[in-house]
């Protein structure tokens, strides 16, 4: 037991803080007072950015695609190196197509954030004809 954790529990035992306050403080230390939550028990703790984007289609046709996310990272980083004249043309074409994303504003930390959060993304489509499409990152 760490010193901080012991101190919080002592304060709780002495009645200096309430159980709710102790719970908050223990939570802030990164150690939940009541152990791991049941909902998190089924999912293994996976850290770090995902490595691949998977697309799986099952049904009449079978499609199985695995794309390295490093490709996305390298592609997005390359956007910051595109010559300004070409970038202006790209942004103009994108806005004509209804995409108002300005690639000039895309920063390296944004790219990492996007890729990191892709782990949470999962797309499941079940069509009427029985085809199932699943897109996820891992």
């Amino acid at each position, binding site marked *: 037991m760490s010193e901080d954790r012991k101190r919080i529990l002592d304060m709780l035992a002495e009645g200096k803080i309430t159980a709710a306050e102790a719970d908050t403080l223990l939570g802030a230390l990164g150690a939940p007072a009541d152990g791991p939550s049941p909902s998190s028990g089924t999912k293994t703790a996976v850290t770090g950015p995902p490595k691949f984007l998977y697309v799986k289609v099952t049904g009449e*046709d079978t*499609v199985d*695609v*695995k794309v390295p996310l490093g490709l996305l990272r*390298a592609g997005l980083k*390359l956007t910051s190196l*595109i*010559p300004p004249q070409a970038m202006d043309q790209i942004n103009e074409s994108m806005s004509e197509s209804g995409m108002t994303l300005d690639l000039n504003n895309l920063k390296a930390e944004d790219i990492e954030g996007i890729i990191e959060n892709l782990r949470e993304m999962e797309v499941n489509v079940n069509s009427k004809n029985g085809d199932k499409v699943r897109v996820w990152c891992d």
Partner: protein
Amino acid sequence: MAMLPPTVVNVRIREPDSRGFRIWLPLFLLWPLLLLIIGSALTVSIVVDFVGIIVGARYHDYTRLLLGCMQILAETRGTHAHVHGHDDNLVDIDIY
């Protein structure tokens, strides 16, 4: 950060009425040629960027752009695509 280009590409295509074919492309045999091309391109881009910096050009990132393109090429390693149609068409592509 991987910078090595793909070593092998495996392509398999099969149609319903034929045996189809499988190609194993040893891309690593092309590496010496690629090295020559990239070496020449890098030399030119470094000179162009250097001149660009000296004359105060707005854009002088051709070397980084070239390295970025190489990075994209390298990151294709690990790509896998498998398509099996209902009429027994098959396309399989693996990049190692």
